[in-house]
Each structure stands twice: as C-alpha cells, then as structure tokens.
C-alpha cells in the first residue's frame, strides 16, 4: 500500500534541489502559519452552519507534500531518528501535531468529497509517520541493560578503574586521569538511574512518546513500552536464576533446596523493591513526563506483573507442608513482605495495588498461622514426648538441646513472633488470654506483672513443659543420684543457653532465672546427700571404740565397706556425664570438700590400729590423695572409650539394657557448640527402625557440614526419633 503514497517525483526533485535551508525554513514556517489559520477558521465556524464548508487552501496540499517527502527520507533509511539534530526532531513532531489538528478539524466535513480526500491522504501520511516513530521508540527502548548486565559490567568497570588507579599512581603524578575517573563514576550513576538508558536515549524516548501520543497512537506506544519493560524485568529475574516453581512442584520438593531458594528470593525481592522498582518508576516518569496518568498506569501494570511472580513463589512456599524446621524461613518471608510492601505502596498510588496487597496479606496471614501453629506443635511434642530410653550417664537430653537451640534461633525473631502471636492469639484462641490453661506456679508468678505478651507466656509455657518432661525423664534412672545429675545437666544447659541469648533472657525475666539457679543448687545439695552421706557414715568415729579401745573387727568392716562403696561410686560415676566444665569442677570440689577432710581425719585417727604391712595394705586401700584423684575422675563420661566392654555398658545403663530394642546402634554426635564446652561423645541410642521411618537422617546427611540450621535439623531428627519411640 505504501507505493500509493509515494510523492510525485517532481516534488522529490524540488526538495533535493532546495539546498538553502534558511529558505526552506521560512517557507515551512509560512506554511505552518497558513495551516494554523485555516484550522482555526474551521474550528470557529458556526456549528449550526450546514452550508458547504470553505474551500481547502492550497497550503494543505503543500503541507501534505512536504510531510510526505520528509517521511520518505526516514522510510528509505537515509535519516535516522537517533542521529537527528534537536531542531530536526522537533520539526518532525510539529508536522505530526499539525496533521493531527488538520484531521481533527476536517472530520466535521467528512461528507464533503474534497475534505474526505484530504483526510484519506493525510491519515495515510500520518500513519506512516507513526510507524516510523513506533519503530524508533521500540528500538531505543530495546537497547536496555538488565540490572544484571549492569552488575556484571559494574564489576568489570570497577576492576578497570582499579587498574587505572594503580597504573596512574605507578606511572607518575600527572593529574590527567583524575577527571576521567570522575566521569566514569558519574555515568555509572546515571545508568543506575535509568536502567541502562543514557540521557540522550531518555530524551529521544520522551520525544517519540510525545509524538506517538499526539498522533493518537497512545495505545501502541504504551503497549510497546509495557512489553519491552516487562520482558526486561523478567529477563533480569531469569539472569539472576530466579526459578519459577509451580505450587505443585514445590509440594513435592525436599525442604533443603527450597530453603536455599527462599534465601535468594528474600535477597532478590528486597533488591527488586528498593532499587529496581524505583528505577522503573523514574524511567516511566522520564519517558512520559507530561503524562502522569500514563506513566502511573504503566508502572503499576509492570509492578503488578513482576510482584506477582515474586508473590507466587512465596505462596508456593507457604503452601508446603508445615513443619518445625520451616519456621525460620517462614519468618524470613513474613518479615520481607511485611517490610517491603509499604515501600512499594510509596511508589504506587493506584487501585492496581489492591490485589497485590490482598495477595501479600493472604500470604502473611497464612504464614503467621503456620508459624503460630509450629509453636503450638512444639508445645504438643514436648508435652507428648514420652521416650523411655534414658540418656546414658545422665547427660543433656536431646530434647533439651533441640528445644533450647530452636528457641534460641526463634528468639532472634522475637519482635516478629510477638507480632504474630498478638495477632493470632486474638483470632484463634481468645480464651487463653484469660489464662484458662492450667498455668504452672511459675507462670502464675510471672503473670502477676500482668504485662506478659502472648509470645512470652507461650515461651514460659514451653519452658515449664520442658521442665516437667525432664522431671519425668529423670525418673527413668534407677539411681536417684543419676536422676539428680541429669536434672543438673539439663538445668544447667537451659540456664546457660538462656543467659547466652539476650532475647530469651529478656523474655523469661529475672525471677525465672533466679528460680532456675536455686533449683540447680537444690539438685546439687540433694545429690551430695544421696551419694555421699552414706559413704561418710563409714567414716564416722562413733561406735568404733569401746572404753577408749578401738574395736579392730568393726574398724576392718568400716574400711572394707568404705572401700567397696567408694569403688562402686567411682566405677559408676566416672561414666556419668557432666558436660559443663564449670559444673563438673563445682561438683568435684564440693565432693572433695566433704569427703577428703573426713577421710583424712578418719585415717589419722585409726590407721595406726592396723599392723603395718599386709594388714594396712589390705584395709587401707586409698590414701587421701588417691581419693582426690578418683574424685577428679568422676563425671568424665568414660563409657565411650571403653564401650567395647559390654560389662561396663550394662552397669552404666542399669535398667536400660532390658529396654533397648534388639538392634541398637550408637550415633556419635559431636556438637560443636562454641558457647558451651562441648560434650565429647554423647551416646544416643537410636533404633535402626527409626532410620527407616525417617530416611533423611542417614548418617551421610547429618555429617554434611553446614550452618546452624543443620545442627538444628540434626537435633530434630534425633528428637523425631525420641518423640516417636513409643
């Protein structure tokens, strides 16, 4: 169809002959004036006047011819928009503008044949002009860099700059390179502002957009803009390896890879909201600077599309099966959305945001619910955990480790958890605000302050449940002393973890910590009484002398039973475990303090009764120093070194032997917890069938060196077993 519009050849010649541009310009200006006059004549014509319209001036034809010729130059490729001088592009736009006005004013008289013919011709020329503008607009717009490209480029630029700096400082002290460096950093900044479009490109885009809009091609212009920018944004995500997962896919995925995706999602989403979106906003505003409505609409649509991609990911994660290890990533997503959506709201003031906000709030409501429920489940699982296998040596129980580590990491999000608990307590269980749950004594104490937040009381509840659970577990030991050691170990661990984590410490409060410390002292005292008082009775001076004369057989019995009892205590209690070094030394010191002086005095008083030599050797097995050495060996958890000696194992475990399942395996978990002296070897009996129940805990997996989460997961696995042993 284009050939219909080719200008008459003679005119083409005329144009090329006219070399004087000044002549050209005055001619054109006159022409424009005439056209404008004619337009105003038409517009001012009385509307009611139905008589034939005025004759069309020759200027209109001349104008059409001139515009036609101009367009041919572009169509043939001899002129390109990006190479235009300022006045040339303005001229083009003036033509477009005027053509629009002519067409508008002519449309009233479209039934007039002459008018119709002009409309036909001018509309064709205008359409060709628009095509040129569209192509130019798109090709400049297409010349973007993704922010990914820019980052990559930024890196190389940085490297180059550094190199330059190096070479410049190395070569000589010329000032020359200095301004160049400045230039570079400035241009970098501009690129950042406009997503890889230079000032010149922006100004061209702006002019082209103006031309397209004034030519009535707003739809084409905005569709072009929308598509190019949309593709650019999506490409950006693709280059950053943002994978789109369907909800269904995510349902079937393992948590490990999802966890990694969540981390990069959080990072990308924040970056998207804080840097990319504001840049997109500036770009839209710059290209459509006179058309606020258009730039708003375009920016909103673009934001909507990309945000939906991000939110879809969060939705898919939120719909995965709820489980304890997901808590932290759920919290990450929750916080990210909570903090970034208001940032986006600042950039858009449009109803288009309504759906986004509702999506985001759905996600956070659901995540909040999951987070809340995970905590309730922690409560339930501690409550219902009834594993009957005591931890050898009275060491810290895995459930204690699990619960404390879990709470420690959870409390890093304490503010968010407070928020979630406030929201959900209100919605889900309003009755528990009145403390209808049978609160323990401790909880009661705390609630006296009346300022406990829902999360705080949940935390206290969990701690109380843990306590009660450990109390029950301590009863599994037949030896009451070992029960006490167990309580001390676990109590100490809980207290240390609490003190080491500011958030938990604050949430649990001073009275709680004081109560715990005093509990520990009571255990300690009770332990001393339980184990050592009976032994000390052997060293009592009472009943040994009758009328000032020592009764040798009784003395022999006393020494014999002391030796036997001490041997037994030593043999048993070296295998017990006190993981906390300070606690261990406290115990040893306090034992020594009661046993050694008593023994020393007993020896001093009665040792000479025996005839030196064989008799002394037979009854006085230990020197006070030997006793001290032996006491220093207590609570070493020696089992592991001698675990091959089954005899020993039976002794340690006492009641355990009968209860352990036939297939037993020992898992060595060496915890590298820096905040506490680590236990060298905790032995946790895990029956083989539990591995089958939970394939993820293959030993391979648990050895995988990874950050804290994995140690938590390991604990979970262990606990999983323990919780399910029934």
């Amino acid at each position, binding site marked *: *169809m284009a050939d*219909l*519009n080719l200008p008459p050849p003679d005119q083409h010649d005329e144009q090329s002959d006219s070399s004087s541009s000044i002549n050209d310009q005055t001619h054109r200006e006159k022409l424009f004036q005439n056209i404008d006059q004619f337009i105003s004549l038409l517009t001012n014509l009385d509307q009611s006047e139905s008589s034939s319209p005025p004759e069309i001036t020759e200027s209109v034809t001349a104008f059409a011819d001139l515009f036609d010729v101009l367009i041919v130059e572009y169509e043939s490729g001899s002129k390109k928009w990006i190479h235009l001088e300022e006045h040339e592009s303005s001229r083009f736009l003036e033509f477009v503008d005027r053509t629009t006005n002519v067409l508008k004013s002519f*449309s009233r008289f479209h039934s007039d044949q002459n008018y*119709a013919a002009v*409309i*036909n*011709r*001018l*509309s*064709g020329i*205008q*359409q*060709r002009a*628009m*095509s040129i503008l*569209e*192509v130019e607009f*798109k*090709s400049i717009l*297409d*010349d973007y860099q993704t922010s990914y490209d820019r980052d990559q480029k930024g890196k190389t630029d940085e490297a180059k700059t550094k190199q330059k700096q190096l070479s410049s400082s190395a070569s000589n002290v010329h000032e020359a390179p200095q301004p160049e460096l400045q230039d570079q950093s400035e241009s970098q900044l501009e690129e950042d502002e406009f997503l890889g479009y230079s000032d010149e490109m922006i100004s061209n885009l702006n002019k082209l957009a103006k031309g397209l809009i004034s030519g009535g*091609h707003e*739809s*084409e212009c905005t*569709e072009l803009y929308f*598509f190019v920018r*949309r*593709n650019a944004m*999506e490409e950006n995500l693709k280059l950053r390896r943002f*994978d*789109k*997962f*369907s*909800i*269904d*896919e995510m*349902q079937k995925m393992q948590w490990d890879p999802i966890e990694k995706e969540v981390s990069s999602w959080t990072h990308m989403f924040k970056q998207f909201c804080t840097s990319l979106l504001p840049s997109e906003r500036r770009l839209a505003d710059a290209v459509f600077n006179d058309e606020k409505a258009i730039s708003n609409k375009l920016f909103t649509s673009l934001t909507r*599309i990309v945000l939906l*991609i991000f939110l*879809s990911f969060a*939705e898919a994660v939120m*719909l995965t099966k709820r*489980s*304890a290890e997901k808590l932290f990533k759920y919290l990450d997503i929750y916080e990210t959305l909570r903090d970034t959506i208001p940032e986006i709201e600042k950039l858009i003031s449009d109803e288009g945001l309504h*759906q986004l906000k509702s*999506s985001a709030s*759905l996600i956070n409501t*659901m995540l909040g*619910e999951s987070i809340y429920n995970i905590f309730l*489940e922690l409560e*339930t*699982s501690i409550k*219902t*955990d009834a594993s009957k296998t005591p931890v050898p040596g009275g060491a810290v129980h895995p459930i204690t480790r699990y619960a404390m580590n879990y709470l420690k990491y959870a409390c890093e999000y304490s503010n968010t958890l407070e928020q979630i608990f406030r929201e959900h307590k209100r919605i889900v269980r309003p009755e528990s605000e009145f403390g209808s749950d049978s609160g323990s004594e401790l909880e009661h104490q705390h609630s006296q302050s009346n300022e406990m937040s829902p999360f705080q009381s949940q935390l206290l509840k969990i701690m109380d449940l843990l306590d009660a659970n450990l109390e029950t577990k301590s009863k599994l030991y037949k030896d009451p002393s070992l029960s006490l050691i167990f309580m001390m170990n676990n109590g100490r661990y809980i207290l240390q973890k609490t003190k080491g984590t500011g958030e938990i410490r604050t949430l649990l409060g001073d009275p709680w910590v004081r109560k715990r410390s005093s509990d520990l002292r009571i255990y300690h005292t009770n332990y001393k009484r339980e184990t050592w008082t009976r032994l000390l009775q052997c060293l009592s001076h009472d009943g040994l002398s009758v009328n000032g004369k020592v009764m040798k057989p009784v003395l022999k019995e006393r020494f014999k039973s002391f030796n036997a009892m001490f041997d037994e205590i030593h043999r048993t209690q070296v295998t017990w475990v006190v993981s906390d070094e300070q606690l261990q030394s406290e115990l040893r010191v306090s034992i020594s303090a009661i046993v050694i002086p008593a023994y020393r005095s007993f020896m001093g008083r009665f040792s000479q009764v025996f005839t030196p030599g064989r008799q002394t050797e037979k009854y006085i097995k230990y020197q006070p120093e030997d006793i001290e050495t032996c006491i220093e060996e207590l609570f070493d958890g020696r089992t592991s070194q001698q675990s091959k000696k089954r005899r020993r194992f039976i002794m340690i475990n006492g009641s355990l032997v009968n209860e352990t399942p036939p297939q037993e395996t020992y898992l060595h978990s060496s915890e590298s917890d820096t905040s506490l002296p680590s236990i060298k070897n905790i032995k946790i009996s895990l029956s083989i069938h539990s591995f089958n129940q939970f394939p993820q805990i293959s030993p391979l997996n648990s050895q995988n060196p990874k950050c804290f989460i994995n140690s938590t997961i390991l604990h*979970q696995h262990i*606990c*999983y077993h323990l*919780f399910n042993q*029934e």
Partner: protein
Amino acid sequence: MPPTDNQGSFLNRISIRRNQVVYEHEVEDLEQFQKHVADRLSELFHPPEDSTAGEPQESLLSIAWFRKLLDAFLCCEAEFKAVVIMGRDANNFSKSPLDRLIPEHLDRTMKALDICNAITHGIGLLQHWQKLAQIAVDSLRQKPIGEGHVMRAKKALNTLLSSIAIDDKENHHHTKSTTSSKDHTTIGNLKSLSYPFAKSWSASKQIQAMSSNLATPRGGEPTGLVVPVYLMSSVLVFVMWAMVAAIPCQERAGLAAHLQLSKQFPWAQPMIGLQEKIGEQWKKKEKKGRSGLLEETQRLEKLGSNLVEFAEGFKFPVEAEKAEEVAAMVEDMGEICRRMEDGLEALHMQVRELFNRIVRSRAETLDVLDQVNKMTTPVPY
C-alpha cells in the same frame, strides 16, 4: 476420642437417639448439597430461556458464562465446606476411605492453584488482545475511513492474529533477538509473552494429574461423605478443564481426553453435557494456535481476519455498501472489546478469589485433619 464402649446406660441411649437425629439431618444436608450443585450446573448447561433478548452474552464459553461458572463453583465450594468439612467429628476423616480421599482432594486443589495462576496469566494476554482489537475498532470508526486508518487497523489486527496463532512451543523463548525486526506489518512484533512456569509445565498434564486418580465411588461405600468429596473434586476438575480449554494457557495438547466424569450421578449429567459440547469445539481448535475456545477470542479472530481482508482490498473511497458491512463488523468488534474490558478484569478478580478461597479452605480442612492426627499420633517433625 471415639466412644467405643456403649454401656447401654440411659445417657448413652439418649445420645444414640440424638445422634440418630443429627444423622438424619446430615443425610438431608448432603442430599441438598448434591441437589444444589446439580441445579447450578444445569443452569449453566441450559441457560434460562426467559433472559431478555438484550442480553445474549451468557452464551457457552463466553466471559459472562465463565463468571457464572466460577460463581457456581464458589457457591458449591462454600456449601461443601459447610456441610462436609466443618463442625464434623474429625474422626470421620481418619477412617478409610476418607483418610485417602480427603488428602487426594486437597492435592487436586493444590494443582488447581497452579492452573489459576496460569489462567491469570492468560487473562493478561487476553487483555492485550483486547487492546489491539480496540485500536482497530477506534481506527475504523473514523469517517471517512482513510487509508491511514485502514493501515493502522490492519497493523493492529495482524499483531492480534499472529499473537493468537503462535504455537506454544515456539513462543516459549522470548529474547532480545526480536529487536532487529523492522516489521511494519505488526506493532513492534509484540507477539511474545513469557509463561509463568518452567518450560516443562503443561496445563494439560496438570488436568490429567488432577483427574487420573479420581475414581468413581462404588455403590457400597460405607460413609455418606464419599460421594460429596467425589462431587467436589469432579466439579473442581471440570471448572479447571473448561478454563484451560478457553483461556490461553501453557501447553494444552490432548486436553480433551483428560476429563472423565461418571454418569451415575444426577449432578454429573449437566457437566457431561457441557463437556461434550466443549470437547467438540476443542477438537476443531486444538491444533490452531493458542486462542482457546473463549467465545470472545474466537469472534475477535474471525472478525479480525475479515477486517484484514477488507484492509487488503481497500480503495478510497469505500463503497457505501461495503462501508456498511465494515461498520457492522467494527461495531461487533467494539461490543466484544467492551465486554472484554469489563469482563476480563472481573474474571481476573474472580480467579483470584477462587485462589484465595482454595488456600483458606485447605488450611481449614488441614486444621480439622490435624485434630485427628494430634489425637492419634505424636506430631512428627
């Protein structure tokens, strides 16, 4: 805890009596539910005749029809939740076969969410098509129709038609390579749009996965909840299937074969009728691009190619007779654009509502199921 030991005491007899009454109510509710579903679906199959002549828009597979379909679905879903899931003794769900059927149903709803996302994306594409058609309409409404108007309309329509005709597989990669195109027949080569999922995702396979394990309940199923659960799943699959057939969607090959509905229930009859009608249309359309069966799209496509044909033979001035003919087509197209403009945004919101509803219902159902789990097994983690 289920009351396992009936001592035959007076109190127990009262409670048995009461349970009896409750049970009868329940049976009634469940029957009502099935009847309501049947009514709603038949209305979609046989739209009421009394609708005034001015509103013929609710024809099969039109946007208005889909809005009614989704409304019907949302109603069914709400009733399903009220009658079947909520307030029911959780132990109902822990016994076979419901302990399997409910999780399977939930799994289907998860798959439906992906389809919702794909449809949302498809609606975006439809809105783009509407904008292109609108350009043509605006342009050809000019008087007189000059060659510029015709060129502009033709360009927009060519863009529209080629966007519709794109083969899914070719379309999947969009790159910057289109930049170089100096294609004057379409607007900036705006054909491509990336899909919301990975390349391998297929709406057709998704539907297949939803329906493949949807087994018709056998006659002697023990509990009265089996049929309602089956019903809900069937309606869900049907709604998703119909949407995928109509709205541009990633990879739909073989879609027609992926829906098997049981004939034995009265509520299934209207669905089967609809399925046959839609299936017939699908067979004609399956291999032709990505337009789908949406009535509006099909008409845009037809009017679009007629108008392109007109544009190709255009000579100024247009004869009066031809002009009239074109004007009628343009008005038709304008009317479709108007319907799309209003309808698509509303449909979009509705799909989103459906999505939210499914998410919430799933959470609520899981809460009910969790109560059973808490009672019977320690919480695993």
